[in-house]
């Protein structure tokens, strides 16, 4: 193997003084007098590195990383929209960062979370929200636990959840974590829920509810949405809305009005908080009034005297993590909502849909878009089945995009499309940037005809060439 990677550990010195320790201003007792020797550590295998070496190391690493600030980042179902800089400034105000979760004088923090909750209630058509869940999947788990608690409280035994085959993988995984087994529902030719099969499954009587993403991962809004929620309710089930794809419908239509009882929203998608290379996110969960007592601790209630926190209500699912949630993320999301206001949110949704349909219209002559009935439009995203000439596939196209200083769409998801490439441009991309993406995909298509080898061995201009995933999994090297 070529030795091209230099890890931070190689930049150390045997012993170097540390600049980040305050002066010791009391006479400290010798540790060996406090703790027995076998409980004391003799050495730590971490180097001492001068500050400037560390800065250089991470600046160099950052330059080997493609990010949203460099180009369109069209990952489907991830909603990679611009992260407003002001939110970073606001979230770093010391009145937010230097407050302790257990301090009593926290009125600003509670007010902020309460106001964010009220805004999300209005946007989603729900009655109460919890801010505690720390990511979308954490929200899903919370929501499904709320279903479990609801039926337990009523003394009704229901142990199954219906999840369509187009759903995010977290949906079945979250249901399993709440102790439910999964009924997978196959989408019909229009990419929508087959009503008869849904009713058939619900009739069995042991189904707690349905988890649905609408618009779904094909970017299609299910026209039968109210019929779907009616069927589930008719047989005593609850409807869970996966808010991963909320962006195109903000201010247009509300999940609560569609008949959903529980929803999570991904603040790091729809509400512009940075994804941070994988997190931290936040996945607040909203419910209709009758489910509000089941929300996790701490529940924040506004009363005339101020905010009251409840953490001893028997009906609650209990605690799902420590303290209040990813508060720093909540600040940024609320700032985004305040900046845009009602009109801005709607405009953002509309422009996201406009951008997606523009991309689709320009790419469709060359690229196949399945589940796409004539005359119908997509919402925020669409899925290409990337069978290019000469066996060039979705992975090859993705890698070729990286060579063109663009990021790739989500590939091989949803699972119902064989060579899936799921494209979500978001509203914050200009026509110029969309056109750059379109031209790149057209050029790649023609290259598949003339020189497929170049695509099958792409990328060629990234810091490393195509990496061997099989080797990584067969012989895991997970640390240095």
């Amino acid at each position: 193997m070529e030795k091209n990677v230099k890890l931070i550990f190689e930049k150390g010195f045997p012993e170097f003084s540390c600049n980040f320790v305050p002066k010791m201003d009391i006479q400290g007792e010798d540790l060996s007098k406090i703790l027995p020797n076998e409980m004391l550590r003799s050495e730590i295998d971490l180097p001492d590195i001068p500050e400037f070496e560390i800065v250089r190391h991470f600046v160099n690493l950052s330059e080997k990383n493609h990010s949203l600030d460099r180009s369109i980042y069209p990952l489907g179902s991830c909603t990679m929209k611009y992260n407003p800089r002001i939110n970073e400034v606001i979230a770093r105000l010391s009145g937010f960062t230097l407050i302790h979760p257990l301090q009593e004088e926290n009125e600003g923090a509670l007010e902020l979370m309460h106001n964010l909750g009220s805004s999300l209630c209005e946007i989603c058509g729900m009655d109460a929200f919890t801010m505690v869940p720390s990511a979308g999947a954490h929200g899903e788990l919370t929501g499904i636990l709320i279903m479990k608690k609801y039926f337990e409280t009523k003394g009704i035994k229901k142990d199954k959840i219906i999840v369509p085959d187009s759903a995010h993988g977290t949906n079945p995984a979250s249901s399993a974590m709440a102790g439910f087994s999964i009924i997978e529902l196959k989408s019909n030719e229009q990419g929508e829920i087959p009503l008869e099969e849904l009713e058939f499954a619900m009739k069995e009587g042991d189904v707690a509810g349905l988890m649905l993403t609408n618009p779904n991962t094909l970017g299609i809004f299910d026209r039968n949405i109210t019929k779907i929620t009616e069927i589930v309710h008719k047989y005593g089930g609850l409807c869970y809305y996966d808010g991963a794809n909320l962006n195109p419908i903000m201010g247009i239509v509300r999940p609560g009005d569609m008949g959903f009882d529980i929803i999570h929203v991904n603040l790091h998608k729809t509400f512009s908080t940075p994804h941070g290379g994988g997190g931290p996110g936040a996945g607040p969960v909203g419910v209709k009034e009758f489910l509000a007592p089941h929300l996790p601790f701490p529940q924040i209630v506004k009363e005339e005297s101020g905010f009251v926190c409840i953490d001893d209500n028997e009906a609650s699912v209990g605690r799902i993590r420590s303290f209040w949630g990813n508060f720093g993320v909540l600040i940024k999301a609320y700032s985004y909502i305040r900046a845009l206001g009602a009109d801005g949110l709607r405009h953002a949704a509309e422009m996201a849909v406009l951008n997606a349909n523009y991309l689709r219209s320009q790419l469709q002559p060359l690229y196949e878009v399945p589940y796409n009935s004539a005359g119908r439009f997509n919402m925020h995203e669409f899925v290409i089945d990337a069978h290019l000439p000469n066996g060039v596939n979705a992975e090859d196209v993705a890698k070729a995009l990286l060579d063109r200083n663009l990021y790739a769409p989500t590939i091989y998801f949803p699972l119902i499309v064989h060579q899936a490439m799921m494209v979500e441009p978001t509203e914050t991309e200009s026509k110029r940037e969309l056109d750059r993406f379109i031209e790149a995909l057209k050029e790649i298509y023609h290259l598949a005809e003339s020189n497929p080898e170049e695509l099958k061995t792409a990328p060629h201009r990234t810091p490393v060439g195509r990496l061997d995933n099989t080797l990584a999994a067969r012989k895991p090297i997970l640390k240095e």
Partner: protein
Amino acid sequence: MDFVPHDNKEISDLLNAIGINSIGELYQDIPQNLQVEKLNIPDGISEPDLLAEFRRISEKNKQYSASFLGAGSYFHYIPSLVDFVMSRSQFYSAYTPYQAEASQGFLQAIFEYQSAISRLTEMDITNASMYDGASALAEAVILATFQTRKNKILLVKGIHQEYIETVKTYCWGRNIEVEEIELEELDLKVTTDIAGVCFQNPNFFGEIENSAEIVTKIKRLNKKTLIIQCMTDPTCLGVITPPGKTGVDVFVAEGQSFGLPPSFGGPGLGIFAIKEKYLRKMPGRVIGLTKEINGDKEGFVLTLQAREQHIRREKATSNICSNQALCMLSALVYLVSMGKTGLKQIATQNFQKAHFLKNQLRKIPGYEILSQKPTYNEFEVKCPDFNKLARLCKEKNILPPLDLTKYYPDMKNHALVCVTEQNTKEQIETFLKIAEEAAQAN
């Protein structure tokens, strides 16, 4: 204010290209009767107004000039370069590194974090982070039940109450039985049907237990059960024996102390480290080193994804997808900034300063130090009048210690005091004066 770059002309160009006349046509699949007129949300505002409004909100939270409160969230010094690295948008505006070749920077940073935590804890494998310490403990418990195919968990008294409650919620979800026990009850309770035993060390009351002895005892009773250690302030690893040396199977901790401000409790990160034999059951992402298919260069990729939900769906080891990646980055930068020298000095200062206050407090009539064992940077003390102590602290702009009735209603006048390297001698002396005053009858 919005962040959409289109002007009206661009909008009509896009509509024309699609072949429609209005935005409304794009929404034809949404039934008309469901569409809303306008949300009842205030109008948007400009950046200066936004900043002013949030400044006002932030000022409604009290900021203290000194703190003696910990209990799961800590005020440690944060080197300036930590936020500098976190603020580089090449990192924070990236998504999960699905396209490895264009994400080598973040992938390498995660690999370095995994390595750094493994070096610090001496555990074999570390994942790319969980949400927080509490959910990490809950996931560790689930791992234990998968591994042993047993369905009962023991929680040793002294675990942070919010962690216990979180574990109970997750276990209720998975139908796992949970029992809380005393440390002295291990002999009685560790039977063959136990999937895992969890203990916190240093425990919630700051006391340091001998992990190696606990591990030996449990393994003697049931060698298949998983031993899970949790921790709320891992800065102590600068001086105390690491979990990998004592034989625990899974180590979890809240990582906020590594370069993140308290931020009202989040975001921090859940540190999750295991013995290698549990790798295939581990939750969360992990990064591996590999090489090019058509070349010889090394590179990093997300690996062992067959455990994860996007492939295994309901059979996945966990549902976790988004984690706390950026916070993980700050933990890495913190650890390499401190280095072995800094980590040892910080831990020593926490230890000695807390010890100093504990011994001085002990001398004041009316105060009883309840921690019998050695303690790290927190200890439990029974006060003559906690409310008076807290009130006097606040008058001096000091954040008072934890009132333990918050978690244990019977512990009236019991306080959990935290001292870190950030507490100066002057602050400690002020606190002692306040304690003395609070002991006097009104």
